[in-house]
Structure formats: C-alpha cells, structure tokens
C-alpha cells in the first residue's frame, strides 16, 4: 500500500474545494416505516467520520439518505447549505460519491472499465473521453495501487482488490465528499487494513469521508470522528478518544468491556469483553 503524501489527483488542478454535508432534523426510512427521526449531523470537513451502531440502527439508511439515494421523509440534507434533492443530480454527483454496500458489476468488466465510470458526472452526452479524464483515472488507479491490475477482470481479483477497484472508481469521481457503506465487510484482516489505509490517505488531499463501519476497533483506529447510533438516533459523537467509553459500548451492544489506550498509537482499545 502506498502512503499518499501528496494529493492524489492534483497534478494540474488544485484539489477540489471542501464541501459541507449536513443533516437537519432528518427523518428517513423505507415505505411507511421510519428508521431515523429528528437526526442532526454535520460531517467534519476533511476528516474521516465513522458511523457505528448495532444492526438495524439506521446507519445505512442515514448514509443512503445523505447520499440522496433515499429521499428524506422529513427534514433536509444540505449540501453546501442547499437542499440536496433540489439540486440537479449531476451537480450532486460532482460533489459527492457514494459506494453502496452490495456492489455488482457485469461479468467480464475490467478494473479500468469500472474506474472510468467514475468520470461520468463530469462528462456531457456528446463529449469524448478527455486527457483530463484519462489523467484522473490513472491517478485513482495509482492511489488504489491498481495500476498493474487495471486490465484484469474484476471477477478474477481477490475481494480486497475488487473493493479497492470500487473505491478507485469513487476517487475518480473526484468529489470532495465520499460516503462509504461498510467498505471492508467480507474482507480479511490484511485486506481490511489495506482499504482503511487507502481511505485514511484520502483526507490528506482535502476529501471529507463518512463511512459506516461494523467493527468498533477499526472505527476507533481509522476515523477522526466517531458517530454512535442507536435506534435511529445519534447517542454520541466526537473523537474516538472522547466518545468511546465502556458505558457507550454497553449501551450500543449490551456487552461489558473496559477501554484502554493502545500502548503504541494511543487509540482506544476494548479489552475484557464479555456479556
């Protein structure tokens, strides 16, 4: 995994200006059923926010509503202060990229084919593939360490490589905001770390990232800001050091534990976990 010291995409253009995303008195859900109600959240700019909580607490619903896939049942999602559903979809797509949890691509599609899709919001129906598109796609592939694999078929890659390809597509979308739904589910430890480090590197070029994460430990380690949800409400938010307490863990998952700092990195660790 290459650690990214310099901005990934900013060869000729300055990194895109940070955008703000905010939920205001948000209510959301499916059909008649409200999953989230009266939720307020402002994503800290240029940081990684992890949304954690038990199954069914509304994490994914929140992420999909923030990403305008689901229409809110009440309240608003504000992108740079404007109602996201009042903005043209294409304009939103230039500012916000969302990676859903279950992704499938047609058989035989290559990594490069997939990553090129990320440029669609920046193209007109009549416009050809530009040199700028080409440069950004290659930069995204480089960031995800996929340059050598770009002509390989997605089906023939490992789970971690495939997930990196999807993230590369989101990077190629070149948006200041990135929403990721469980980007490391179904990956083994090594591949999880690979993907999390890639995500972390994105904030260094001014991206604001929000991700739904199942694993509390990884959330604490790789996020700058932690949002804990339960039954459709945010019950705690702040830096992992501030927020992650034994009381919070019990309230979220009904398990007892102790929280101590990692002796090396200082991030909170859960020890002595029991029911």
């Amino acid at each position: 995994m290459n650690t990214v010291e310099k901005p990934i995409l900013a060869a000729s253009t300055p990194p895109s200006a940070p955008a703000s995303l905010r939920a205001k008195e948000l209510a959301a859900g499916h059909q008649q059923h409200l999953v989230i109600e009266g939720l307020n959240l402002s994503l800290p700019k240029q940081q990684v926010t992890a949304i954690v909580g038990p199954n069914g607490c509304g994490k994914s619903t929140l992420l999909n509503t923030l990403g305008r896939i689901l229409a809110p049942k009440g309240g608003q999602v504000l992108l740079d202060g404007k109602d996201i559903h009042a903005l043209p979809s294409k304009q939103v797509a230039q500012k916000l990229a969302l990676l859903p949890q279950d992704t499938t691509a047609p058989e035989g599609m290559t990594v490069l084919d997939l990553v090129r899709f990320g440029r669609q919001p920046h193209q007109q129906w009549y416009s050809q593939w530009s040199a700028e598109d080409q440069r950004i796609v290659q930069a995204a592939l480089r960031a995800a360490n996929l340059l050598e694999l770009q002509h390989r078929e997605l089906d023939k890659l490992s789970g971690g490589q495939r997930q990196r390809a999807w993230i590369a597509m989101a990077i190629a979308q070149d948006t200041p905001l990135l929403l990721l739904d469980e980007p490391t589910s179904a990956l083994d430890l090594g591949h999880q770390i690979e993907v999390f480090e890639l995500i972390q590197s994105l904030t260094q070029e001014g991206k604001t990232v929000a991700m739904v994460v199942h694993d509390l430990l990884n959330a604490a380690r790789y996020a700058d800001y932690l949002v804990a949800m339960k039954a459709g409400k945010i019950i705690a938010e702040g830096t992992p050091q501030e927020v992650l307490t034994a009381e919070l863990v019990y309230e979220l998952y009904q398990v007892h534990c102790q929280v101590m700092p990692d002796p090396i990195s200082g991030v909170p660790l859960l020890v002595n976990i029991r029911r």
Partner: protein
Amino acid sequence: MWKKLLTQRPNGVARPYPLMVWMLLGAALLALVMLSSLLIGAGDISPAAAWQALLGQGHEEANFVIRELRAPRTLLGLITGAALGCAGALMQTLARNPLAEPGLLGVSAGSAFAVTVALLLGASSTTLSVYVAQAGALAGCLIVLSAARLNGVGNDPIRLVLAGATLSSLLLALTSLLLMFDQRTADEIRFWITGSVAGRDLATLKELLPSLALAAVLTLLIIRPLAALALGETMATNLGHKPGRIRFVAVIVVALLVGAATAMAGPIIFVGLVVPFIARTLVGADIRRYLWLCLVIGPIILISADTFSRIIVAPAELPLGVLTAMIGAPVLLAVVRANRLPRL
C-alpha cells in the same frame, strides 16, 4: 497499424481484440452474407445468372427477381436483424438478465397480437400503420417488465423468462384464435405471423424510417447512463443519472425497434437472445461497445438464416421464424443448462 491492433495484450486481459477489429470483420462478413442473399434463392435463377443481373447484364427474369424480390428482402433482413439485435441488448441491460429477449418475453408477440387485432378491425396489411405494431410491443414490454419487478422474480433470470414465455404463448394463442374467425386475415398474414422477410415491399420500410431514426437518437442519448445502470440503480444515481427516466426511454426504444421489426418480418424469436450473447463474448459486457457489434451481427444472422430458409427445402421455402426457432432453441437450452448464467 493492423499489427498493433491485433497484438494481444498481456495475460489476463479480457479483450484481446478491440471493437474496431470486430466491426471491420463483421462488416466484411455482412457484405458477403448480403451478396449471397442476392445470389442464392429457391427459384431457378442460377447464382451465375444472378451475378450477371447484379452487374446489369442479366436477362429480364433474373433482373426482376434480383431487384424486386431479393434486394428488398435483403434490405429488410438488414434492418430487422439490426433492430432485433439492438432491442435484445437493450432489454438484457434493462432487466439485467442475459435471457431477456423480445421474442421470448412476449414483446414481439404483443406486437403481432396488436397487428392481428387491427387487421380484424378492418385495416388492410398494406395500409396498416407500424405504430400499431409498436404500441403492441410497448404494451408487451411493460407487462413483462412489471412482472419481472414483482417480488422474488427480479433476481432470477429463469423466472423472468417463464413469465415472458407465459405472456408470449398466451398472446400467440389469442392471435391464432382471432385468426380462426377470419379466413381473409388469416390468409393475408399466414406467412408473416410465423416470421418472414419475404414478399414485403419497401413501402413498409419507408414508413419505418422515422421511428428507426428516433430510436437511434434516443439510444445515443441514453447509452452512457444505460451502461452505468449495469452497475446497479444506486450506482447509476450516484453517478448523477436518473434510473427511472433511463429505463422509461429504453423501454420506448425497445418498443420502437421490436414494433418496427415485427411490422416488417413478423414475430421472430431468438435473434435478440443470440446476437447480444455473441457480441458480449467478443467485446465485453459494456453496452457502449457491444451494442455497435449487435448492429452488424444481427443482420448477419438474420440474412444468413433467411438465405438458408430458401435452400434447405427448395424449391419451397421455410418460414424464417421457423428456422430461427430451430436454431435458437438448442442455443437457449445450452445457455440454461450451463452451470451458471453470465451475470449482467
């Protein structure tokens, strides 16, 4: 340049040859197939005599056969094949199902049914508007796709085909039933209803041109979003597209194409299934690439099937629809029997 085009890329590369190579090969093959369609027939004009006629030196009878019978027939085959091939590709992308096909799913049957009803109501097959066929195709398409969206059916390719086959056989049975009541109509469209490009005049084609042009323009407008739809509805929305609107336009295009093809050649099955299948195998699953190839492979298959239909039981002719069904059925069985269906 040729060497560069034909050089294989490194290991694990999905597509050894670029689209342009296949398009050129396809165009060459299509030219050959069209030429044989002009030269070969069930009548007693020898290919040599037909060749003379093509060069403008033939005798009267050969000239007539080539210009008035075989040339229109070949032209209709060209348009019908291209329309059905593209309609199949669009339907498969719409349904994300490699078995979706206008013939199997009842779109062609809907079109044929509409035409039969119009004939019974007093229209004559020469004045009949193609819009009737297109409206029927649209209705068939909407019915089967809404069935496919019902819970539990959407993710299972086989069940969509079952729903489509049910609709298709129902509509064809109703069509036969209607024809029993009206001998005049039955005689008039007997050949057409089994699928045939023979004996149609070019006036139909002229009438179709505006809607085919419209279909082409609409396809160009939605082709990029349609490709994105292959990544799922959420992803298409994320990329700034409106899946509902894209689907709607794609359904209209399918109806225009299948309606046009059916008005020309009757309900022809399996062409829409086989053509995209071959095209995808050659250039990959991105519709922006393989749709172009469908435009060439469709006519190749349809015109060669039509040419064969003239010679296998010569001096009689086999209806084209019978022949495509005979070829297509084993192909479908092979696809269904394969361990797994390709995922779209």
